[in-house]
């Protein structure tokens, strides 16, 4: 039988199943195979906070979306072209996102009366015609997997566990992905469990063969590699890029990296990743709580290490007082907040950008800190090094506001050459007479980084207000006023690059201004709007405190400034108060990134206003 091969420019696939079905792994593998084929891509994992919600329920559905193309990709895609649904719950939870004509692949074995009832289907959607406007492939994935593995000495339950590899094999065939890297991955992962390895490899192969031989699938698809700048690439998630950026900062600064952290979703993966790299001299300390995590990092920084703490919103709230101490001690400290839905426990596994004002103002007294935000997963690598540069140069706490979308999402990354990384070496205070711990560098206003072990500069510092220069306790009114203003001036004077504006025609009246993880959907929307003949400008803030020096001029140039944020307008508050500029907010707090279409529509509304 000859099969048709169709060339596509782009595809969005969503893998969905029970949280125990291995959908994140399946998505990850498909992503790696797609990346190694040279397609640009963007991913969006979406999973429940419960580790194992009751099986087969809507609450337990976990999904992984991947958008890949023969051209540059900005987002994980608005609507999937293909949905792989491992059970009725996965179908029901995701069908509303599918455009008509989309392809649905389901495990028909799971569509039993019991499972259908569990999620409120009165009739079987595979049979009642409700899916007629989709291309549906009902495949008995479970039973075919079990049959294929019948030669192995596995229980039925164990055999069933490999059905995700069957699905992966089928999709691998459908989209002409290479099989070697998944095979290598399985070989490594299950090296010590030969039975499980054999089962996974066989299920993967059987899925691939099923696509190749069955008449159910008459078409397969090719997506040509994306044109990318020459170089060596790998796929990378935000949390791993952040960890690598910190290790690179440690190397480039010749400082010991100390991470104090308390486990919290979605930041824990940075702790996990760094704890693997002890040979770089990295110390990871899992503290007893969030306060001890940041306290230990500050203590290490006092001793001359690159002190870092990682957390999410609720943890940041607990760290506030210690960050205030860091402001007072004027020591370098990096605080990474991987934001999630709030307030309180909120939506632990979902994304949001609502900690901006907490990072800016969530401490007692006048307590300014530097605030940075990466735009995409790979950008975390550079932002981590930038945070280290600023923290060590100015001896200030620096926030990095990542979020769940950036942290777990991934994209291809051109691996930098070590020679191209910045020199981050620092100078410590040396032995001297009459040492003044709060004398300042006139350019940066930084005080000396005076570490214990240095003879002759023994001194005492603390959270009580300091006298200028000597650092002794001072309750003098004029001195307090001076010190408060000096700390503020130091942060305001941090050197950051100018904001670049993308305004190709130069005549746009509307500026789309974003920060953090909204970069992808905004860029995709701007691209689409311009293709439609609309004139819009785009700019993205990575430096939020201090703002780039040219930001005021940029804002003044445009009639309307639209700021999409996954909060109720926090950047807008900062912009309005600092520049007296009217801002049009576009705000959503649904725990999900913006879709491209939403931003297009919001922008059109302003353009037509």
């Amino acid at each position, binding site marked *: 039988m000859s099969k048709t091969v169709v060339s596509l420019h782009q595809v969005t696939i969503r893998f969905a199943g029970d949280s125990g079905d291995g959908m994140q792994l399946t998505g990850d593998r498909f992503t790696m195979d797609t990346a*190694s084929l040279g397609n640009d891509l963007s991913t969006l994992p979406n999973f429940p906070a419960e580790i194992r919600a009751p099986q087969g329920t809507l609450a337990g559905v976990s999904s992984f979306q991947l958008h890949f193309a023969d051209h540059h990709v900005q987002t994980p895609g608005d609507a999937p072209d293909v949905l792989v649904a491992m059970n009725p719950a996965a179908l029901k939870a995701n069908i509303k996102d599918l455009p008509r004509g989309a392809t649905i692949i389901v495990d028909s074995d799971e569509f039993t009366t019991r499972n259908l009832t569990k999620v409120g289907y009165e009739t079987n959607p595979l049979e009642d015609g409700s899916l007629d406007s989709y291309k549906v492939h009902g495949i008995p994935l479970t039973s075919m997997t079990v049959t294929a593995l019948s030669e192995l000495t596995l229980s039925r339950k164990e055999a069933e566990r490999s059905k995700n590899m069957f699905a992966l094999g089928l999709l691998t065939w459908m989209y002409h992905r290479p099989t070697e890297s998944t095979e290598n991955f399985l070989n490594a992962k299950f090296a010590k469990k030969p039975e499980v390895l054999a089962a996974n490899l066989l299920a993967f192969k059987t899925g691939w063969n099923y696509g190749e031989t069955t008449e159910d699938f008459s078409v397969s698809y090719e997506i040509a590699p994306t044109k990318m700048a020459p170089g*060596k690439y*790998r796929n990378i998630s935000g949390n791993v890029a952040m960890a690598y950026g910190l290790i*690179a900062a440690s190397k480039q600064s010749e400082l010991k990296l100390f991470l104090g952290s308390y486990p919290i979703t979605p930041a824990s993966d940075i702790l996990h990743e760094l704890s693997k790299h002890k040979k770089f001299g990295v110390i990871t300390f899992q503290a007893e709580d969030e306060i001890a995590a940041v*306290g230990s990092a500050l203590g290490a920084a*006092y001793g001359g290490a690159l002190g870092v703490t990682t957390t999410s919103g609720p943890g940041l709230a607990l760290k506030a007082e210690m960050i205030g*101490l860091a402001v007072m001690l004027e020591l370098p400290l990096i605080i990474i907040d991987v934001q999630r839905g709030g307030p309180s426990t909120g939506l632990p596994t979902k994304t949001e950008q609502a900690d901006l004002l907490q990072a800016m103002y969530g401490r007692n007294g006048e307590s300014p800190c530097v605030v940075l935000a990466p735009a995409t997963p790979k950008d975390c690598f550079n932002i981590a090094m930038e945070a280290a540069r600023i923290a060590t140069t100015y001896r200030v706490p620096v926030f990095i506001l990542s979020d769940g979308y950036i942290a777990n999402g991934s994209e291809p990354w051109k691996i930098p050459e070590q020679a191209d990384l910045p020199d981050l070496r620092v100078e410590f205070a040396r032995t001297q007479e009459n040492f003044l711990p709060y004398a300042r560098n006139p350019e940066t206003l930084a005080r000396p980084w005076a570490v214990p072990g240095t*003879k002759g500069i023994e001194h005492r510092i*603390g959270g009580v207000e300091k006298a200028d220069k000597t650092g002794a306790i001072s309750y003098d009114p004029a001195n307090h006023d001076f010190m408060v203003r000096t700390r503020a001036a130091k942060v305001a004077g941090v050197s950051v690059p100018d904001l670049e504006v993308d305004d190709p025609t130069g005549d746009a009246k509307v500026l789309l201004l974003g920060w953090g993880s909204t970069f992808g959907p905004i860029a995709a929307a701007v691209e689409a709007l311009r293709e439609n003949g609309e004139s819009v400008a785009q700019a993205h803030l990575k430096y939020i405190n201090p703002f780039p020096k040219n930001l005021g001029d940029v804002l003044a140039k445009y009639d309307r400034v639209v700021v999409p944020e996954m909060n109720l307008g926090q950047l807008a508050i900062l912009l309005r108060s600092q520049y007296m500029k009217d801002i049009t907010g576009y705000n959503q707090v649904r725990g999900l990134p913006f879709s491209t279409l939403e931003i297009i529509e919001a922008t059109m509304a302003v353009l037509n206003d």
Partner: protein
Amino acid sequence: MTDLTLTKKDFTSDQEVKWCPGCGDYSILSTVQSFLPELGLPRENIVFISGIGCSSRFPYYLETFGIHSIHGRAPTLATGLAISRPDLTVFVITGDGDALSIGGNHLIHALRRNVNLKILLFNNRIYGLTKGQYSPTSETGKVTKSTPAGSLDTPFNPISLALGAEATFVARSIDSDRKHLTDTLRAASLHKGSALIEIYQNCPIFNDDAYQIVKDADTKGSATLQLVHGEPIKSQTHGVIFVNGAMKVVPLDSVQESEIVVHNANTLDPSYAFALSRLSGSELVHVPIGVFRDVERAEYGGLVNNQIAEAIASQGAGDLAKLLSSGDTWEVK
């Protein structure tokens, strides 16, 4: 010990000491300043870290490195510093409110990990800096500004708490007993890992004479049970014996000398030292003074740094270029 010939004066900073007249903190400060030269360490390798409270002003008065941090959190800063800088000697200065109330969590975790910290807990059984509220070590029924009808809380016994966290070195001393406090500081300094010294400290303003019974020349002899390793545990009037496996304080004239428990601070089972800690409650009738427990256990910072050294020994030092291009990669020409 070394060729360093430092004196008490070398450890005295230029800051004016600002505690209330008669405060027990003065004698502790003086004893510590006199003791420090004995360590034989250069001043720059010693760091004192405190929290908040009267006692936490301590670091300002010592000519070493020091941080006066925030309430209850001194052990967190000290832990980060001690792990990343094993070359330093780190002291934590804290009080009963700082260590046992707001900072209770950090204290027990530092002790269970056995971080190389010498923790001096000044216990005056009252909140001094905030002007006289009851503390977690105040006796039940304490009438203070915040408890006009008497406090309802059962107090902590700091020694029992530390032993519950399996601290490897736990001792008690008294602010005014310079010799005993010096001996105890010496023993703590020789210990590798966490050492907690509870120091009974008088607050003349808000809780004066709380410890008079163990300080007064007339009463201290009978009120304090001396814990000396290898010696029978006794006061001038009483001794400690085992009765059906439990410790009991009995008049000396009611037992043979040979029946009195001979103190072994190195006893691995913490229940021995715990039983000792239970001999006195807040009423201070028979108060054990000295080192309750001094046992060996690997020090946390050493363990952390060993893992790193082992990783480097077995895999070689980290190569950044290799790390960045690890995993699945592909080349675009």
